[in-house]
């Protein structure tokens, strides 16, 4: 049944978009909390995934 598969594919595709949104907003929230934390000045900013980290 093509329609059933189509509905499933559509629902999964939309779910993927929603999960990506959630992960992104979660990352933003973590960065904001880190910036609000007074101790974060000593640790420095949270490195973004695409930025090289100092070792």
């Amino acid at each position, binding site marked *: *049944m*093509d*329609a*059933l*598969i*189509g*509905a*499933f*594919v*559509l*629902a999964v595709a*939309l*779910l993927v*978009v*929603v999960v990506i*949104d959630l992960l*992104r*907003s979660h990352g933003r929230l973590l960065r904001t909390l880190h910036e609000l934390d007074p101790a974060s000045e000593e640790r420095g900013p949270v490195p973004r995934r695409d930025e090289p980290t100092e070792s």
Partner: protein
Amino acid sequence: MAAAFVSVAALVMLVAGLAKVIEPDPARDALGVLGVSAPALLVQIAAGVEVLVALAALLLSGPIPALVVGASYLAFAGFVALLRRDPDAGSCGCFGAAEEPPSLRHVVVNVVIGLGCLAAGASGALSTLSLLRENWARGALFVVLSVAAAWLVGLVLRSTRWSSG
């Protein structure tokens, strides 16, 4: 796939139409931003037509309901794109009282759904009711998946991540 587009689009349209029948003022405000002055009753009548079109797409097979839903979504996309050009537009008013910023995502989702429905109309996809009649169990599963997808469309549209893009 094509029938799924029509089913999901019709369910979202049904909810949006009912929301505007109950609360027409946000849609009136959005029209006002574009310089169109419409009384609340006219917005409610248009929303009632939206509900009827959605019901027709869910219940009737054939190309016309799917094509009308597809054309409606493309018109909504154009409306939201016009609203995006005005910084005063806080909400598109699509879902009544629910604040829905006129985002780029909103335009893209409407265009994708609209094109999907036009494709469904052109290919003669079956309606949700026809699918239920054809095979009750599979039809019921199709309805459950369509409702879930329609709810997810609402969540995707709520995101304002692209609103400034």
